[in-house]
């Protein structure tokens, strides 16, 4: 394994972290459209919190996918072809969510509930299935000698991956609630905080079950005991910190901590995988490894140079955009609603 290969393994993790941190709350807000808001005005209010930024957040996923293709083509090929139907459904979820922002703004009031529903369903589908995908991936998939997966239904959907999917959905939902709390004014903000108070208790249960399954169903503890424990403790620790912050009304803290919970989860997955990128359940000699799944050194050099130049720019204008849209979003006053 060369330095660049390890760097790119980490960078893929960073890109997925960025995706879950940023698009995570978009998904959460998408779910909240159907669960938190009581009327159309409230729905408009919470959709507006992510209106200008959701698209940019989703680009983190596109970048992660593109970077995986470029730096670990064998990983990309195995993962994407192996999870064919799961990714198909993720795409359907992302598509119906993505169009709903523009469609709900331009359709008749009568059709608006349709696009609110697709936004919520799309968000749940994408997060749940991302959870299922990543968690079943760390459990190990039947990867053959040529790096192809021929899996059965239960390789994708088992207790571990389903718990993982639900936990990720809940995490994103909570992340979204924390985001709504900080980005809105009035009743909706308080209500989001109340929801978060209660739901964190459910999350703890999910996290404990997830941790137990992780210990028994993966080899993470055997391969990387320290890193695994550290990440697990961080996941729980950040959850508790976020929960406490919702009680003490430190809204920025709550949002940061729920985001860090998601990042810790990505860190757990990537630490546990190292030095592999995919685990074969048939035989450990069919595991895809960082050093054999990667691109040539030349391509990695080109990618590294481009990334070093472009990512700081991206971060700079993204932060600037969030700063422009820093104002909290209030309910339209009575009489002003169309």
């Amino acid at each position, binding site marked *: 394994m060369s330095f660049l290969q390890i760097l790119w393994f980490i960078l893929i993790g960073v890109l997925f972290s960025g995706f879950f941190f940023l698009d995570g709350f978009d998904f959460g807000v998408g779910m909240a459209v159907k669960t938190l808001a009581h009327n159309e005005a409230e729905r408009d209010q919470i959709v507006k919190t992510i209106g200008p930024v959701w698209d940019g957040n989703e680009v983190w996923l596109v970048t992660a996918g593109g970077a995986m293709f470029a730096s670990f083509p064998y990983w990309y090929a195995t993962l*994407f072809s192996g999870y064919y139907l799961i990714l198909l459904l993720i795409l359907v979820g992302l*598509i119906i969510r993505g169009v709903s922002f523009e469609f709900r703004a331009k359709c008749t009031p009568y059709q608006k509930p349709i696009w609110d529903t697709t936004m919520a369903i799309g968000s749940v589908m994408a997060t749940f299935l991302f959870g299922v995908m990543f968690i079943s991936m760390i459990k190990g998939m039947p990867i053959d000698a040529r790096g192809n997966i021929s899996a059965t239904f239960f390789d994708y959907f088992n207790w571990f991956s389903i718990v993982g999917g639900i936990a990720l959905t809940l995490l994103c939902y909570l992340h979204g609630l924390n985001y709504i709390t900080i980005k809105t004014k009035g009743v909706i903000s308080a209500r989001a905080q109340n929801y978060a108070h209660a739901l964190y208790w459910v999350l703890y249960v999910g996290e404990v079950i997830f941790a137990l399954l992780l210990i028994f169903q993966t080899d993470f503890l055997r391969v990387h005991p320290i890193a695994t424990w550290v990440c697990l403790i961080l996941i729980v620790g950040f959850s508790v910190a976020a929960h406490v912050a919702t009680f003490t009304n430190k809204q920025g803290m709550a949002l940061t901590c729920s985001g860090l919970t998601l990042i810790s989860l990505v860190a757990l997955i990537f630490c546990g995988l190292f030095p592999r990128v995919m685990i074969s359940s048939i035989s450990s000699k069919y595991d895809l490894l960082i050093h054999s799944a990667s691109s040539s050194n030349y391509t990695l050099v080109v990618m590294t140079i481009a990334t070093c130049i472009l990512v700081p720019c991206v971060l700079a204008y993204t932060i600037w955009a969030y700063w422009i849209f820093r104002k909290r979003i209030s309910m339209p006053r009575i009489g002003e609603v169309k």
Partner: protein
Amino acid sequence: MQSEYGGVKMNIVSLARFQFAMTTIFHFFFVPFSIGTIFVVAIMESMYVHTGKAEYKKMTKFWGNVFLLSFAVGIVTGLIQEFQFGMNWSDYSRFMGDIFGAPLAFEALLSFFIESTFIGLWMFTWNKVGKKLHLAFAWLVVFGTLTSALWILTANAFMQHPVGFVLRNGRAEMANFWALLRNPQLFYEYGHVVIGALLTGATILTGLAAFQLLKKRKLSDVNKKIYHKTMRLGMVLMLIFSLGEICFGDLQMRYIINEQPMKFAAAEGVTHTTGERAPWMIVGYSDPKTHEVKGIDIPDVLSILAYHKTTGSVKGMKEVNQELEKKYGTHIDGRKMNYYVPVNTLFWSFRVMCGFAALLFLMSIVGLIMTRKKKETLYQHRWLMWIFAILTFSPFVVNTAGWLITERGRDPWTVYGLFTIAQSVSPKVSVASLLTSNIIYFCLFTILAIVMIALVVRFLHNDPDEYDKAQEASKVVDPFSKGAI
């Protein structure tokens, strides 16, 4: 792998190909639509900032909304594109990832982030930031779309004409990144695609403005003026870009005579190598079995088109096939090969493409002459206006035709001369999975297309003047108003 469903034999290659065709064609309805309209809209906004006239602002906002609808469908269908290389073409991804992945990643890092961030800013900061800054947002989006096209076409140009690589470790590895960017194929393809996209935007906005003028008998003077100005601007751009497109098309075709002779021969319906004075077939039909093309010839014209002089022979498909069989063998990976491409598809796509390019060029001249200040008579000739209105749909047909020539003309290769389509497919994805995804995409696209058209039509019930006033009035509801910034 082959399975039977209801007596129909299907295999993964044909299903994966069908899906690729369906998803890329659908995606590419919206790509040039968005690239073109945001460019025209950015020009409109520049005119607003330059002149300070409110009508240009209303124009910008109004057409900007059409752009936003197209962009929304464009991005979500673009996600499929990125995923499906891994999903359906995993062996291709293994073979090409070293080269193909990098431009894709750059496209995301350089272009998609800019586009998505600044579209958000552009949409939501009218009247909130300075005029010039707001205009800069629009042009940054244009920059994003134009560089995005550059990166993805770098990848496609490599597939048409591989350069700067070595075959090592059973795959194509990048040897020289600059060689990828200096690929002559990229120069022609980029010019052709981008000018085509800009022409698309100009044609669509001209056409939609014509629709509005035709459909609405009682337009206020302000609205009428805005639509007239839209048409006038649209037609100027149509003239420039259709001319550019004809030139680039000519350059590209003359380039592929040597690079991809089969594509050229099929597009022009040349079965056997011609004499020194090559005749040009205007209409024809090819027998799929014998590859013989029969049709009406016009003497000498093909030599002129191909070489810009009266003599010069063009190689026929039969001879090209023999050459390619000699070069690449009659068997690859145990599969019997021939190097014919679907002649009728290429031949007719080519005629549709060139025909419409010429038509757009002529119509823009006619339109510009008839809208000059001295004698503005175009708007009284309803039949002429109808031609403009109907031409709104032409870019979708033409863009598809163009890609059919480019991609089907590369048969049987995914990467010309290196890797075949049959080698590219995901070996372990089942026919059932592929059938499912084909059906789901088909249904999803049908719904998206219907909704998209319905929403554009619904939006066009508005007019720029009233729309802008309504927007300004509802400003209180706007979250970012009241000194938000």
